[in-house]
């Protein structure tokens, strides 16, 4: 996912398929709402600063780490790439640790 997006941030000649992919992904919940008539469940009962800080860290992290859940966690793991296996083990661990610290040591935000 971030590989497709980052190709738009440093524009390359092959932007059309990237934009088409992203628009297709964004259209999915709209189509589901139109088909089922029910809203898509989305609960983000968090202070805005955690979403901003989370976004900044994710943006920095995926740029240096070279991938996210879909890139390393699914595609790279499926190719048995050593880089992706290491990256996935690390980000699953730090996500778990962050949730533990926030919810159980700090009492949640």
């Amino acid at each position, binding site marked *: 996912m971030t590989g497709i997006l980052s190709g738009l941030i440093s524009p390359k000649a092959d932007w059309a398929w990237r934009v088409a*992919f992203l628009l297709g992904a964004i259209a999915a919940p709209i189509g589901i709402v139109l088909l089922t008539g029910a809203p898509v469940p989305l609960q983000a009962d968090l202070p805005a600063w955690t*979403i901003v800080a989370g976004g900044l860290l994710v*943006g920095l992290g995926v740029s240096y780490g070279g991938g996210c859940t879909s890139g390393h966690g699914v595609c790279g793991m499926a190719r048995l790439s050593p880089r992706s296996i290491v990256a996935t083990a690390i980000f699953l661990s730090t996500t778990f640790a962050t949730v533990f610290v926030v919810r159980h040591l700090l009492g949640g935000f």
Partner: protein
Amino acid sequence: MLRTVSAAGIGLSFGAGIVVSGMGNPAKVLNFFDIFGSWDPSLMLVMLSALVVTFVGYRLVLRRPAPVFEPKFHLPTRRELDLPLIGGSALFGIGWGLSGFCPGGAIPALGSGAPAPVIFVASMIGGMLVANALRYLSLQRAAV
């Protein structure tokens, strides 16, 4: 043209999978990681089934000489386990744990109409731009 239409179709399939499975819903994602609290293990099945389908799919698809709409396959070739990979992945996990959003969850969630994915994706693009700028500066310093 067909290439662009096929990319949109693939994005639609990806986004539908994310939305239906709950990967785009921060509360569900954070509960998946909260093993000692309100643990919701269902997203493990989502990751596992995505992995199985991709594992089998790659082995079938990569038997072809090339993709349908592209002259050749583009697969990552790097092997080194370096500091940017390790540190970057660690930072990504902290961000995912703070917000409950990963990129593949938040981008389809933009279509839900809720404000949180918009705030997240804007901040994430900000982080990517900062990383690009830092990399550019370090390349310039290396050139001097």
